[in-house]
């Protein structure tokens, strides 16, 4: 008799979803976050949900946790006490960065380089040198390193990043420096680049290492606090942490390499969406997670999320395997405003949770996207099952005023705000689809987050998408997604080898080493040997290309089979991604070997709806404004009441607790047995 509890900690609220393993019953709680020590909010959430479920702490069998707080720690510029040790001759490496100035031509005149994560006076050199094959050219000057470490600590440094040239090929010198830090200053946190990111390109590796060590004290501490409390109440249960690669690991593992949790915030939602899509029968999806201030977008092919390894946290590059998620600054709370030149803008300014949109009557005075929805008749008189009464006349007044500036009616402007918001989301979708070589028209759009289903068909129409999936309880899909995560650990090794000269034995040996490391690590997470899967892949390119493509090795292939497969399949993947290939004409180059070690988790059953013959009738009608046709009196349906397979045709609105599904003319919606609504273009 156990309760699985998932806690999704955001900047403002902590969402908790618990599932009873016995009967599939779900419980949901929302509680304030406690950013200074997230363990407090986390434990509050656990206690509340246990109470709601009518259980005791000892019934909790598994705890899953995802968080955005590590990102916030970076964003809040908590950089104090950071030091860096680099190879002799490279002390200015992070000052120089990649010499690049962002965006427009001419910006170099006025653009100001943001402060470096670690100030130059806290960067020290270590005399030591490897070549790119890991051959030692100069041995490590240990005495010099000891002086450097002591000086840094003397100056108040308590987090040290170590990044030596070519350490991905040979980590001996970095390891030694780590040992010296531990030996001399056991309380000082440190991260080695060969552990954090054993991949070439020294600047990005150094920055990722610095960010890892920067968030280490914060993450390690709160995870340990939470773990100690949990142990005292629930005993030795798994406490698993979401990572940006879409997998979970034990909290000790996460705390040891916290950069892997840094961008995990939106990942769980994508996994939840994949889970519901699998049930609904869609393999290729685009996810649209519309929150209050922003929207997270990702592409999933064959139920496998698109991955990337490069992202920016504010001005700083972070390389770690992560779901390829693009965020655009438009959400339900985005404000509609007029710029200095009389142009109508939507977002990134936002009403936020406080004061919120005008119609929430919490002090908001500026029109938000939610107010536009109210004006257009897309929202009912009250939200969350009647708990939040909407002041629609005040929204109307604000849009009357906005409309006057453009000689338009309130509803015309409000519909235009939706058009602009949808277009902003479309630009984000282009970033994860066409710029990566995929046509969104071939995908189904999965909308979630509180406001997702209000925008989904508008966005789909822009992109020529024919299907939208709206899962049930869309506001909790992120927390729910934590329940369907596998244990995942990624391993990478840079090994630049050209096909014409490559030694297959060497490649196989390196791959096997990664596999063995991965197998051992996942087993230590408590996964049974039979549930462990090792997935090989490789980053490969034509000689001279700037970007590698990832070639996934078919399961079960090893040795020369795997290597032959890699060289051959590369051309196909390249053609698929870029539209051309040079098979037989140009030499191919391996750059990185990768292994993902996966421990399959048992997933909770989704409770099916009871089948009933009774087709639901509309619960009422409401006037709704559509940009193409104007006002139409539309039927309103209660989502819960729809029978399995029942199809309603637009224009109509389908309402549920906490969310509204908009079905325009030329779209229809049908309910499936898992509570999904499937919208189709007719």
């Amino acid at each position, binding site marked *: 008799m156990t309760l699985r509890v998932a806690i999704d900690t955001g900047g403002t609220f902590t969402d908790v979803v618990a599932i009873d393993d016995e009967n599939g019953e779900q419980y949901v709680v929302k509680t304030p976050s406690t950013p200074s020590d997230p363990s407090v909010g986390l434990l509050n959430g656990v206690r509340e949900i246990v109470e709601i479920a009518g259980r005791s702490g000892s019934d909790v069998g598994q705890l899953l946790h995802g968080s955005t707080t590590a990102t916030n720690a970076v964003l809040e510029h908590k950089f104090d006490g950071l030091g860096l040790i680099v190879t002799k001759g490279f002390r200015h490496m992070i000052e120089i960065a990649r010499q690049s100035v962002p965006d427009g031509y001419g910006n170099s005149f006025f653009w100001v380089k943001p402060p470096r994560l670690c100030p130059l006076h806290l960067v020290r050199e270590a005399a030591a040198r490897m070549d790119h094959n890991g051959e030692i050219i100069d041995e490590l000057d240990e005495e010099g390193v000891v002086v450097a470490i002591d000086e840094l600590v003397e100056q108040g440094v308590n987090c040290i990043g170590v990044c030596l040239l070519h350490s991905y090929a040979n980590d001996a010198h970095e390891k030694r420096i780590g040992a010296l830090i531990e030996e001399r200053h056991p309380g000082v946190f440190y991260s080695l680049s060969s552990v954090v990111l054993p991949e070439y390109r020294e600047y990005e590796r150094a920055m990722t290492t610095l960010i890892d060590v920067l968030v280490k004290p914060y993450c390690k501490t709160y995870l340990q606090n939470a773990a100690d409390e949990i142990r005292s109440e629930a005993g030795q249960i798994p406490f698993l942490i979401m990572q940006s690669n879409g997998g979970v690991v034990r909290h000790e593992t996460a705390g040891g390499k916290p950069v892997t949790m840094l961008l995990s915030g939106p990942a769980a939602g994508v996994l939840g969406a994949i889970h519901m899509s699998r049930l609904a029968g869609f393999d290729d999806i685009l996810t649209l997670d519309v929150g209050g201030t922003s929207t997270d977008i990702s592409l999933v092919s064959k139920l496998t999320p698109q991955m990337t390894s490069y992202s920016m946290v504010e001005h700083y590059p972070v390389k770690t395997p992560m779901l390829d998620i693009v965020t655009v600054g438009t959400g339900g709370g985005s404000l509609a405003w007029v710029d200095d030149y009389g142009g*109508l803008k939507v977002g990134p300014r936002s009403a936020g949770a406080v004061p919120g949109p005008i119609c929430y009557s919490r002090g908001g005075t500026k029109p938000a996207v939610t107010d536009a929805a109210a004006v257009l008749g897309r929202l009912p008189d009250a939200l969350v099952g009647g708990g939040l009464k909407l002041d629609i006349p005040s929204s109307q007044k604000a849009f009357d005023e906005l409309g006057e500036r453009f000689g338009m009616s309130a509803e015309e402007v409000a519909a235009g705000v939706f058009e602009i918001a949808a277009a902003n989301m479309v630009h984000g979708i282009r970033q994860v689809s066409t710029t990566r070589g995929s046509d969104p028209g071939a995908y189904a759009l999965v909308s979630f987050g509180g406001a997702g289903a209000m925008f989904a068909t508008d966005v789909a129409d822009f992109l020529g998408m024919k299907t939208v999936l709206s899962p049930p309880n869309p506001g909790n899909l992120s927390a729910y997604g934590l329940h369907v995560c596998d244990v995942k650990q990624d391993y990478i090794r840079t090994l630049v080898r050209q096909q014409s000269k490559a030694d297959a034995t060497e490649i196989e040996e390196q791959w096997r080493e990664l596999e063995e490391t991965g197998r051992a690590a996942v087993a230590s997470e408590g996964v049974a040997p039979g549930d462990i899967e090792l997935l090989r892949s490789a980053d490969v390119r034509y000689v001279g290309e700037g970007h590698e493509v990832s070639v996934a090795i078919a399961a079960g292939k090893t040795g020369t089979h795997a290597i032959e497969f890699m060289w051959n399949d590369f051309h196909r993947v390249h053609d698929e991604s870029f539209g051309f290939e040079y098979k037989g004409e140009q030499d191919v180059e391996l750059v990185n070997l990768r292994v993902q070690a996966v421990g399959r988790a048992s997933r909770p059953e989704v409770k099916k709806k009871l089948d009933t013959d009774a087709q639901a009738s509309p619960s009422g009608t409401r006037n709704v404004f559509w940009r193409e046709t104007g006002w139409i009196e539309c039927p309103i349906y209660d989502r819960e009441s729809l029978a399995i397979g029942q199809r309603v045709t637009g224009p109509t609105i389908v309402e549920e607790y906490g969310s509204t599904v908009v079905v325009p003319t030329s779209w229809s919606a049908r309910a499936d047995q898992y509570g999904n609504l499937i919208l189709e273009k007719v």
Partner: protein
Amino acid sequence: MAGKNAKTTLGPIELEVITGTIRSAELEIEAAVERTSRSPMIRDQHDYRVALFDAKGRKLTGRSYSALVEPVFEYFDDGDIHPGDVFFWNDPYNSCGGIGHVPDLCTTVPIFHEERLIGFSQVFGHHDDVGGAVPGSLPVDARDMWAEGLVIPPIKLYDKGVLNEAAYKIVFRNSRLGEHLRGDVDAEIGAALLGSRRITAMAERYGIDALESAFDTILENCAATIRRELLPKIKNGTYTWEDFVECDGVERDKIHAFRLTMTKTDDKIFLDFSGTDPEAAGPINWPIDYADGKFIRKFMAPVLRSLADSPERAAEIDMNEGAIDVLEVKFPEKGTLVTPTFGKPTGMRFFLFLRVLGTFAGALAKATGGRMPADHETIRIWGMHGGRNQDEFYLFREVLGGGGPGRPWADGSDVVHIVPNSRNLPAEFSETRYPIRVEKLGLARDSAGAGYRRGGFGYNKQIRTLGDATLLSNADRSFINCYGVNGGKAGGLYGVTIEQPDGSEVEAPGMSDDRVVPAGGIVKLQTTGGGGWGDPLAREPELVCYDVLCGLVSPDAAQSDYGVVVAKDGNAFVVDEAATGALRTKLAAARGELNMFDRGPVVDDLRRKGEIDWPEGWQDPDEGWHAVDADGRSDAERAA
């Protein structure tokens, strides 16, 4: 909801969506170029430009300056532009001023909606090699453009979707890195086509009328922004300024002046290039006197953005074709640096790029009470090539930035490149790919021009070659410094030295392509520091002290340039306040009135010796201009 029934008038909604879509399409095209191109010059150094134009060839986007569409109109009849066409050229003398040197191959595709031409999508890139006398196609002693590579006048590489195979083969056969070039060109064509589909989708959604009205409005808004936010900050009047390219690679002892007379009125800026020196024998010419100077007007306009209220606002201002409504130009007679006669070499025209921008900024500094950024020299190409035969041949080439300019609101950024998103090559990448070892990747001490806000520091980069190699250096500013503004000092110089395996050192000229670096030798590069802004004696002593602590400014320079005396205190440095006060008083008295501009010792010396020849009607444009305070008063005026 889409299609022919769509609204046909432009409202705020359509305008915002179309504007956003153009911006997003531009980013998509850029991503496609980077994703699929082959040469490091394009994908890592970002040396390519993307643009979308309307059917009249007016540029709708402002992220980069791009080329022009005019050659399509000039070389092809109205009826000879069809769906599936791909126009292609690199001819500096037959591209209406849009393409400045032969390695820039330009791809342009027309955009159609229902048989009607609605715009163009264009990508051009700086390619690794298009033939010519030396690898990299930038011979420093080229005497005509035919030595610089294969010259392609405007042609159709695809005609209604059919590839011109003969041209395709000839182009790639003429490159030392033909396969790279082919990959790049294919990538550029694919990317341009991708962008055209986004514009077509807008025509489908809102109708052609609304789309074309949106284009008009986007351009009008740019001109309105310049007039409302930027022009009021420039005092009406006429201002002259000049700057120099040091060396043309052929006649090595001659410096070349670019001259500008700027006249500012309430709603326009007139730029007259008369007085510019005659065309050069070597490859520093820049033919821009075509198509009413459209290219150079769009190229210069972004300099004005520095006058915005804040750097954040400056970044938001998009400089599209609307800018040419504000900027007018006048060219001198044929036969000058900017009006060269047909066939003169142009490979290193990027020196003039920077002189033109810097000269405009200098004239604006006079007209704004010194409120413009100082100078920065942030493009130069250096490299090495080697290998005993074609199979082993390699070309390791990098565009290295320099220190950014000091400006009223901040110190110059260290080692930046004027080309946005350009990236240097990681040492770990370079060492894996080429037979070299990076011995040092640092900032050059004391290279930043001193100032109240100092310039940024240049590179100190040292590379050992593991095999015999030949050095390439295409660099200016090796003896004429980046200027400082409003009392700021000039920045440090470019230099390249070869350390022989026996330890002896030989300096190479900025313009070199024949120096041999034997195996084990080290190439030592120092790049320019940015000019300083404002009086260095007014710089906060603790900032000077921090630069000393970091090793970026030497204690000697802290004293001589800033009048700051520091003392070592354990691992740190502290300011000796009393000594600093005394020294600053002494230095201020000794220097007399502070000049508006500092061009460094070489130009001062040339002036003293009377070795700068000003044309008729010209005099030293710096003379009589002094640094001013926030109220616009010079030292002398304040004293009075």
